[in-house]
């Protein structure tokens, strides 16, 4: 191989590599961030709260502008790893996992289908899947741009029996968890 051939071949390789980089970066990029989820509810004994760190995967672009997302949001998925829930008491965690069956259904997911920008955030609409039941839900999200990304905060009240989750019932009904719960999300979504 002549020196000229080598130069040409190297040049071609660099060019292809650069093109590849350009191609990779020209499409929308999904950014994944860790966010906090808090699940709260009541029982016949007292209120309770369990927490878990999940993920928010957001792809920007192709949507109406919303606070922190000037080009809009193309897609977003929230994922909650059920087995990682932490509760104030071991027994409470056991009851939660018994009801949520993480071996069969390891994740709770929310898939964004659409949103409407509001003054300080957006009203998100999408599909929430718990166990093997998927329901359409809509809830307000507060969005605030920060140096590290976009701070998101929102809360979604729901009835766990709508998703086939049996409210924990302990000691032959001496303590019964109420079916109404509230899921809160809080964290910073990277951009």
């Amino acid at each position, binding site marked *: 191989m002549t020196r000229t051939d080598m130069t040409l071949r190297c040049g071609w390789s660099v060019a292809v590599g650069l093109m590849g980089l350009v191609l990779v970066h020209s499409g929308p990029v999904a950014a994944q961030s860790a966010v906090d989820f808090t699940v709260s509810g009541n029982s016949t004994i007292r209120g309770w*709260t369990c927490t878990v760190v999940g993920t928010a995967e957001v792809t920007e672009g192709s949507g109406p502008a919303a606070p922190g997302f000037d080009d809009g949001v193309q897609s977003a998925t929230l994922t909650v790893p059920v087995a990682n829930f932490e*509760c104030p008491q071991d027994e409470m965690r056991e009851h939660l996992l018994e009801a949520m069956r993480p071996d069969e259904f390891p994740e709770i997911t929310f898939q964004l289908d659409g949103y409407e920008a509001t003054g300080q955030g957006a009203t998100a609409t999408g599909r929430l899947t718990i166990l093997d039941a998927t329901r359409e839900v809509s809830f307000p999200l507060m969005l605030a741009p920060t140096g590290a990304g976009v701070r998101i905060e929102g809360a979604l009240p729901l009835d766990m029996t709508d998703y086939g989750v049996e409210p924990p019932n*302990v000691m032959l009904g001496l303590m019964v968890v109420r079916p109404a719960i509230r899921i809160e999300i809080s964290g910073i979504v990277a951009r």
Partner: protein
Amino acid sequence: MDQGASRRQFFKFLAASPLAALAYSAIPSGWLEPLEGAVPPAGPATVPCINCGAPALPATVASASSASIASAARNASTLPRRVTPQELPPQEAQEEQLTGSAVSSPDEAINVWDLERAAHDNNLAQHWDYLHMGVDDYETRVANREGFQRLMLRPRRLASEARTGQDTSIDILGQQFDTPIFLCPVGSLGAYHTQAEAGAARAARAHNAMQMQSNVSTMGYEEIAEARGTPHWFQIYTNPDWNRNQRLIDRVAAAGCPTLVWTIDLLGGSNRELSRRSLYGEGTDSQLCQQCHNHVPGYQRPMAQGLDGPSGERPPYTWDYVSRLKDASEMSLVLKGITTAEEAELAIEHGADAIHVSNHGGRAVNSMWATIDALPEVVQAVRGRVPVLIDSGIRRGSDVFKALALGADAVGIGRPYVWGLGAFGEDGVNRVLDIMMAEFRMVMRQTLTRSIDEITPRHVMEARNPIMTRHNEFGFGL
């Protein structure tokens, strides 16, 4: 066919007949109930709706002849009405206003009593009883509310110049807070929500409100301080063994506690009849209770842990004890439970850095006078030498204003924030503080006061009679 079935068929026949509309006024009232039961259940469109203009007629009547409809319309007010909850007529709104409404989210709460109802519905009866109880016949609890209701506002309508801005901040014992409202020490908050004292601490932090932790808390001082972000005040029930007290004082002082609050209104005990009734029988030994109460062998409350050691002196609870507590650490010392001028004077003489006017929310002694009634003589005795705090019976922003007007420097709430916690955890406590601060700010606007210092005794006056408008038949609304 049995007699009951025959009777039901007869009622069905009557209900389906257009003549029934004409006959309604003549039917004995005892028959109307089974007659209604025989009518097929009406859908939402046919349910009488007083406010939406739909005809207030039952389904069978609506399908009758126009003559019978006109007749039935004349008699409509005599018919029993079934109104669905989503179509509440004004009468029920009035009822809810007087008794509170069991709201399903913090934002729905209009006043603190809505959260009381929600907390009641979502907590174990025995836990509720512990929070709700007064002593003996609840006279002190009632007196606390009546004291505030007997005090009236003297507003200002117009000023000589524009008065803008509103500063609700206070400085107390070297600390600045954004609100004069503080969270009183209440024991065992974990009984009402698993967030317990930490949930209350996060809400206090969000409002930059002062918080006193109870000696009998569910969480340790350090854990609560971490949730709050800064050290908070600590309330102590002294033990006869001085060494245990010293170890406890050393522990909270090491964690950065700036102020120790000694509760002196329970030294003689209290007659808590409701608690005794609710714990009758097995008490906390029952299987359900043992899920949480002492079910771990050797369990000790968080603030009782690590206090074992050699016994020490057992000094009597005299005024010298105040000096002893004061000298036990670098912390400021507050005496909680003072309700007279004489004791306020003695407290200052023995080193108290602040006076907390309190009757323990009516949980210590029956037949006590209201703290708002005791406040003026304490303030007069103190003469500005130390801050004066007050609690017991504060439920409204206007109560906060009245207490400040009579010379309090900070105003504590107990049950209301626990109602919020028991209903919705931290969010519920936030809602309580939001509601009470919004009410307080409105009174400030109505009195043209722009800062706490501008709130003076001239903004209040005593009314002739106590005014009780809330329903108290089941104990709600106090």
